[in-house]
């Protein structure tokens, strides 16, 4: 159990670092969506199903959608 959790935490941090270094904003947004999804799984392990649901439906789905819409209306690459 603890091994799985540690791996998930590691993956989450790696995804966050990816969001930091990607110059393509769309990729960075997908990475931050991954952060939210993994966080949502961790919330579930922490016995917080309400929060896990909220994080998955709001943090991962809707936020990513509005990011993508905003990027489509602006610029995709960081200069």
């Amino acid at each position, binding site marked *: 159990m603890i091994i799985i959790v540690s791996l998930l935490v590691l993956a989450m941090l790696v995804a966050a670092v990816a969001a930091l270094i990607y110059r393509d904003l769309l990729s960075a947004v997908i990475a931050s969506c991954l952060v939210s999804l993994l966080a949502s799984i961790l919330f579930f392990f922490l016995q917080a199903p*309400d929060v896990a*649901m*909220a994080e998955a*439906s709001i943090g991962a789905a*809707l936020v990513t959608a*509005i990011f993508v819409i*905003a990027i489509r*209306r602006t610029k995709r690459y960081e200069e």
Partner: protein
Amino acid sequence: MRATVGLILLAVIGVGVGISLLAIPFGAPKTEIGDYYIENAREDTGATNVVTSVVVGYRAFDTLGEVTVLFVAALGLGAVLATAGGKRGRSGVEPASLILSAGNIFLFPLILLFGAYIFTHGHLTPGGGFQGGAVIASAFLLVYLSSPGKRINESGATLTESVSGLVFVAIGLLGLTYGTHYFLANFLPKGTLNTLFSAGIIPVIYCAIGLKVGSELAGVVDNLMEETE
């Protein structure tokens, strides 16, 4: 320069927080308040989901504030994006494929139903107004993806937002006048534990929140997608 200052700042915060975390061991027995809520929530509010009874019962005022925050953000977003140039619709967007638009016809009502299920059962199972509202908003998101030209009915959305918010405030004020005379106190019968029609005002508030959050988030997506001059 900025980065150096930032890194020093980060290090200071890190050390400070690290030291203080030693005083908050992970997995330690929970607090008095948490214990009290778990022991008494079923009697006090009639909800089996203790998180819900905290969110909509004990700390309902926070939730009223939170709904207001979302309302503020939706309004602010509309104000920021509104320009004098007028609206132009979403030109230049290709229509979606047949599969997406046909699937949407089937899925849209199902997703709405699922969202409604989540917020009406918030006092029994995980989930509640916010999660259900987000699911409803994602149904609208699907509609925008499949037929980009479609618009949300703006008057309808405003009406839903305002009326469901008013319902929340009105329930609070009714609690002030009826029953125990406290703002947001329960004044409805609590019913039998673990049934749909129980927990007094909690399901009513959660329905109002679900509709409000759903229409606001859908409005946010709608506003952001709009091409303005």
